[in-house]
């Protein structure tokens, strides 16, 4: 399985804009800045790009606007994926496929959002997009992602005894790691007392359960693993990529009980495929960057990617296992909760830096295998994930 995609493509460069609450510039400008930084990291220029990919939900500059803004007349292979965090890693996986298939040699993947100053995911008066499941929820005031995840977190608490302190352990622990990340928007330590005192947004979630609405962009340059070896930086292989697992937002009664258990995410279906493509298992993962739009998504993914038993995500997080030096360091950059929210791609960028051994005060010693994951598939059906491996 995975004969041609496994280890075919590598990340050759990573680039960021600064993260802020108000960038003062357009998403086109953010995208260009991150892309140029990633190309510089790789030792390449815009003239080398023959593929460009992003995802968006009507909130960002598309490839056909970004490429010409950088003077790229023919962007070559392109992907303008509709979707939010659940497709963040699918964009990288599909770019790797384009490279593996020989359709493109050098693809830049980016995500650029003014998620605080322009387009807030929580709605703020925007009419809910689309109908489908949302039409049965929005009239009751169930609109924002934080509310959907709060319902699921509550279901998990009821089923498994997951506690507020378990959620808090994720928030406190990630802030601790962000102290070692100069890019992080929030670096001041927080205590469990601070967590428990933070105001309610949508119970059981407090303010400190929620990611930081962020203005910023991040970009990654992908090329063939073979070519990447000759470029400026040590290449990080995309060893496996997987998609899917989805069901509509925890409703419906399909064959096999699709969506029947709201406490299990789409990642539970995707994970076996991902590991099989890599020939690796959860025990091989040295560092995991798990999509953390809210604290609880970390807990459910710890379970669904096989790092602990179902229902044990809370106790596992509270045990200290997720620290640098712990059994499974998770969200070493502080995650969306403390570094900033670039909708998934900054998790991949962090994984790349960990595997290059350049993460400084937050480095996991000897990290060779990293898991990076997308939103685990509740809001827009499926999910996606990557397994990355260090330069050999």
């Amino acid at each position: 399985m995975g004969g041609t995609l496994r280890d075919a493509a590598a990340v050759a460069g990573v680039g960021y804009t600064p993260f802020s609450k108000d960038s003062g510039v357009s998403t086109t400008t953010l995208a260009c800045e991150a892309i140029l930084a990633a190309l510089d990291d790789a030792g390449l220029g815009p003239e080398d790009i023959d593929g460009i990919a992003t995802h968006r939900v009507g909130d960002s500059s598309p490839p056909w606007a970004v490429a010409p803004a950088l003077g790229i007349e023919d962007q070559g292979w392109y992907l303008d994926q509709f979707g939010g965090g659940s497709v963040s890693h699918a964009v990288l996986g599909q770019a790797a496929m384009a490279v593996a298939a020989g359709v493109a040699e050098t693809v830049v993947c980016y995500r650029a959002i003014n998620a605080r100053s322009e387009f807030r995911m929580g709605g703020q008066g925007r009419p809910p997009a689309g109908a489908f499941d949302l039409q049965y929820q929005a009239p009751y005031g169930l609109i924002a992602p934080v509310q959907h995840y709060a319902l699921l977190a509550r279901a998990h608490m009821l089923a498994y005894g997951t506690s507020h302190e378990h959620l808090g352990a994720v928030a406190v622990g990630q802030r601790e790691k962000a102290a070692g990340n100069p890019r992080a928007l929030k670096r001041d330590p927080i205590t469990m007392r601070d967590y428990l005192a933070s105001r309610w947004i949508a119970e059981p979630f407090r303010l400190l359960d929620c990611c930081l609405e962020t203005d910023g962009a991040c970009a990654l340059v992908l090329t063939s693993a073979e070519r990447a070896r000759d470029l400026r930086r040590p290449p990080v292989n995309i060893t496996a990529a997987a998609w899917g697992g989805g069901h509509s937002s925890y409703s419906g009664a399909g064959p096999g009980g699709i969506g029947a258990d709201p406490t299990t995410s789409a990642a539970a279906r995707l994970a076996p495929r991902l590991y099989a493509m890599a020939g690796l298992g959860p025990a091989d993962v040295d560092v995991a960057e798990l999509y953390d739009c809210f604290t609880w998504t970390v807990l459910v993914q710890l379970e669904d990617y096989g790092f602990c038993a179902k229902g044990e995500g809370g106790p596992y997080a509270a045990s200290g296992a997720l620290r640098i030096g712990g059994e499974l360091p998770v969200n070493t950059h502080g995650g969306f909760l403390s570094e900033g929210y670039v909708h998934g791609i900054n998790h991949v960028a962090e994984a790349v830096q960990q595997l290059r051994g350049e993460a400084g005060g937050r480095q996991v010693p000897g990290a060779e295998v990293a898991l990076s994951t997308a939103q685990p598939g509740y809001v827009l059906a499926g999910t996606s994930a990557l397994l990355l491996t260090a330069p050999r």
Partner: protein
Amino acid sequence: MTEPAPLRPGTDRDSAAWWELVRRHRLAVQRCTGCALLRFPAREYCPACRSRSWEWRDCAGTGRVAGWTVTHRAFHPAFAGQVPYTVLCVALDDGPGLRCWGRLVGAGPDALAADLPVEAVFTDAEPSLTLVDWRPAAPPH
């Protein structure tokens, strides 16, 4: 000062008839006439046998609490006057895997517990819009 208009559901061609039933104070799910599977939300194909033949089946109007959230800030102006408010996820008693969402009425969130029995309440928000809310079920006689 006038209340902001309710947020109307964006119905589609699969769901319009379901909302019309609710307007007439009927809570229903689809029953596949091919394999008898009950399904919700409304859609044309049975996900088990792929039949397009189905009928409405009136629900018992009862269910169990599967989850809830108490919202403390308004994410849309229509709800500014309602915070904090509680939205439930309800597992319908009619069959496995059938879940519905609605506001909690007639009690506060302190009354909630896993699997608490609840019953549907029809709330006429506007002449052309009825919503399905939920209240703790009366104890059996």
